[in-house]
């Protein structure tokens, strides 16, 4: 892979994470447990989709095939999406939503912080904008982990189930293939190993405050970054792309 092609793939990985998680959260709009939280989740969904949009515009420019951000979002099929498995997991209940959010927000906060130092000026600039939002996201989901863990026996149990079932997607966040490591060497991509300690210690701190134990002995899944997804993503894309694909080549 030449370096433009690997940069293109790298941007897609970041953008796809933001888009798919934002999309999942947007499915909850009007379904929140109370009005203020509904607004907060829509707001976070908008942040994520907005960040994805900036990244797709940049990716399209790097690819240099006269494509638009919409082509990348609406005309790629399942295997071409490079998001991690975590973000495509369904909205099983509010504990799953917040657990998924908390794991991703923690990763994303340290990731965006590091990406601001990228040698790639555009990526660094997008990260500098995104980090302000990530800081709020991190506080929002962290507070919910504490509330749900500490709240009632039911909320504690639901949160425990969510952690047990989503923990298998944690390691994939930090996986890097040879092409990405090459970008790390050039100072463009984030060395995910360098943020893993911060990730682990923030997760441990919040979970301890919440009275939750870190799940152990969980077999780790991966594949999303190679385009090998869970069965959930296909349905998400089928829905998301349905109108766009039904009327090829028109303006919206």
């Amino acid at each position, binding site marked *: 892979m030449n370096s433009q092609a690997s940069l293109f793939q790298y941007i897609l990985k970041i953008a796809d994470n933001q888009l798919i998680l934002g999309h999942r959260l947007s499915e909850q709009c009007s379904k929140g*447990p109370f009005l203020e939280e509904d607004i907060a989740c*829509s707001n976070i969904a908008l942040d994520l989709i907005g960040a994805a949009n900036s990244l797709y515009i940049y990716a399209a420019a790097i690819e240099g095939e006269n494509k638009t951000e919409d082509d990348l979002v609406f005309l790629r099929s399942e295997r071409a999406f490079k998001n991690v498995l975590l973000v495509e997991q369904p909205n099983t209940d*509010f504990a799953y939503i917040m657990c998924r959010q908390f794991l991703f927000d923690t990763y994303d906060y340290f990731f965006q912080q590091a990406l601001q130092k990228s040698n790639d000026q555009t990526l660094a600039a997008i990260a500098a904008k995104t980090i302000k939002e990530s800081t709020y996201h991190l506080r929002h989901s962290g507070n919910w982990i504490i509330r749900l863990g500490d709240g009632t026996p039911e909320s504690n149990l639901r949160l425990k189930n969510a952690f047990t079932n989503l923990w298998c997607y944690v390691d994939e966040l930090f996986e890097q293939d040879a092409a990405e490591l090459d970008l790390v060497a050039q100072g463009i991509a984030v060395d995910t190993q360098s943020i893993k300690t911060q990730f682990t210690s923030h997760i441990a701190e919040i979970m301890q405050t919440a009275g939750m134990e870190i799940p152990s002995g969980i077999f780790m899944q991966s594949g999303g970054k190679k385009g090998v997804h869970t069965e959930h993503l296909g349905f998400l894309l089928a829905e998301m792309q349905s109108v766009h694909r039904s009327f090829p080549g028109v303006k919206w």
Partner: protein
Amino acid sequence: MNSLKLDENQLIENFEAKLAKNEMIEPKDWMPAQYRKHLIRQISQHAHSEIIGMQPEGNWITRAPSMRRKMVLLAKVQDEAGHGLYLYSAAESMGISREEMLEQLHTGEAKYSSIFNYPTLTWADMGAIGWLVDGAAIMNQVMLQRTSYGPYARAMVRICKEESFHQRQGYEIMNVLASGSPEQKEMAQDALNRWWWPSLMMFGPRDEESPNSAQAIKWKIKRETNDQLRQRFVNQTVSQVEKIGLVVPDKAIKWNEAKKGYDFGEINWDEFWTVVKGNGPCNKLRIANKIKSHDEGAWVREAANAHAEKNNKTKAA
């Protein structure tokens, strides 16, 4: 007994003198029980309309056909949640709790705008709703910026700013579709056909059949009648329809030079009352969805309360 009666008369006189001078009534001011009751009903209905109105549009967030449309639609539905929030707060200032209002919504005791009991079937419906439904709502809300109850009037000022943005983006969606491919234009016309009449119904029954109107105008809660607002909406919208090359689905539409406005056909009032009484295509679905998310959120609200109480105790100790 006599002196109490006199006091009440004096209070009414003061209240009416304030209205006569176009002064706002504020939460701590004395107000007639009927005025309070009327406003609680109206503001809570308005809040419920914003909240239930999130569903027909929320239905298309995950299918919006471009990134820009997706972001704008999500932001719009989020705005509506925000409007619901201001309006619930305005109603709370009159002495009713949000829980009570939600209870009334869930049991069917409180109504919301009937327009949201129609289904959103194609992407063009997002254009039609923004343009026509928000457009009709603005007619009403612009008037309500001068309503006599202060918190309601101030909520309306904020809401109107966002609503006019919603209306513009809805019209823009329709414009793009109407000038797009034949299929897109057909989709736009079909949406206009389905939303036109229900939008005219949004202004409520004809003046002679609107029992609460006269009193609401006397109290300066409303400043214009249902028929006046409906006429203004038709006058404004017909030229917008023509401008983008669509056709108003009403053969009786005709400019009337004498009244400087359009004559239009008779609204199907049987349909209007059918939907108001709960038998529209989506009445049951909208409420069932609302109750479902409220019930599914119960354990989350309990957990948040339990955590907050534990925190308070720790702080107190």
